[in-house]
């Protein structure tokens, strides 16, 4: 199909769909002024039933825990797919040379960048861990904290350079985090089944309101998600940044 024909086809489709879409926009209730039955039910029931103060965490890791397991597996599948696609051409071999872009050498890092990264990288990683662990209490949780940890690992690359980064962040550890976190989530569900309850039912003691371990099973599966997401983002950055290296002569590509 030529560019022109494709444009015409898309325009016809858009014209056909536009009246329906506009009718939906016009029929929607006004912003912020309509009943929210499910949200109200969660807000009413979950604080007492689960002893956690963050309702989003309660929905994610308990009330809709099975759905989040599906999301978790989607994350695992997408990351494994990306890694396999990238390594399919590059091979498993991992070099230890600093990045070079063609014949253009990478300029040396300035002292300011190194200093800033050395100060911010540990703080970012600790902050990510804090966000993971306080899922039940304050905004945050395994997904956000894991993304912070995974992205914080890039600060190590920026500040310490390729060689030190590869030494400090071994790929094997990231693989173990990713797989282990997802496995912890799935196994936690089977743990509930051992007591005769349904898969992922909350069988652990709920703990005290406002405590970091409140919510029974929520801290366990949340920690699993935190491990998996930090491993996932770490792996993605590792593989993609590896792609920006030029393979040395004779090195496996």
């Amino acid at each position, binding site marked *: 199909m030529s560019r022109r024909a494709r444009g015409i086809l898309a325009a016809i489709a858009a014209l056909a769909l536009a009246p329906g879409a506009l009718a939906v926009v016009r029929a929607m209730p006004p*912003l912020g002024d309509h009943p929210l039955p499910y949200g109200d039910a969660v807000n009413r029931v979950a604080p007492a039933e689960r002893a956690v103060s*963050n309702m*989003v*965490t309660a929905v994610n890791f308990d009330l809709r825990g099975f759905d989040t397991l599906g999301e978790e597996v989607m994350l695992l599948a997408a990351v494994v797919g990306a890694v396999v696609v990238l390594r399919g051409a590059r091979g498993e071999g991992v070099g230890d040379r600093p990045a070079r*872009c*063609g014949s253009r050498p990478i300029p040396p890092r300035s002292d300011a960048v190194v200093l800033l990264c050395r100060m911010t990288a540990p703080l970012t990683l600790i902050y990510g861990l804090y*966000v993971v662990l306080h899922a039940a209490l304050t*905004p*945050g*949780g395994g*997904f*956000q904290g894991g*993304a*912070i940890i*995974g*992205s914080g690992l*890039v600060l190590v690359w920026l500040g310490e350079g390729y060689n030190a980064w590869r030494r400090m962040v071994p790929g094997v550890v990231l693989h173990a985090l990713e797989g282990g976190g997802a496995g912890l989530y799935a196994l936690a569900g089977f743990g509930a089944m051992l007591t005769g309850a349904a898969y992922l039912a909350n069988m652990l003691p709920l703990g005290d309101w406002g405590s970091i371990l409140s919510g029974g099973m929520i801290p366990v599966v949340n920690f699993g998600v935190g491990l998996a997401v930090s491993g996932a*983002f770490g792996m*993605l*950055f590792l593989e*993609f*940044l590896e*792609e*920006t*290296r*030029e393979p040395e002569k004779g090195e496996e590509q």
Partner: protein
Amino acid sequence: MTALLAGLLLLVAATGTGVVLSRRPERQVMAMAANGLALALLFAALQAPDVAFSQLVVGTAAVPLLFLAVLASIRLHRPEERPGDRPEKGA
């Protein structure tokens, strides 16, 4: 509050349009980071701190960084120039 939400919604629409209309991927990465930041502000204004958090980390840092790595890799692995190829601008 109404004005804040309306302004942020329009900002999201404008930056989203900017992402689509910046045709050079190198520029699009910056537009994407701006769009991610606008979305994070909108989510915070919609009383969704958890989502704003997630969007801030993923939309302004992680995803643009992946795009930058891909663009760097594409420049690195560029095949030999074939006759008739347009010269790459701003490479």
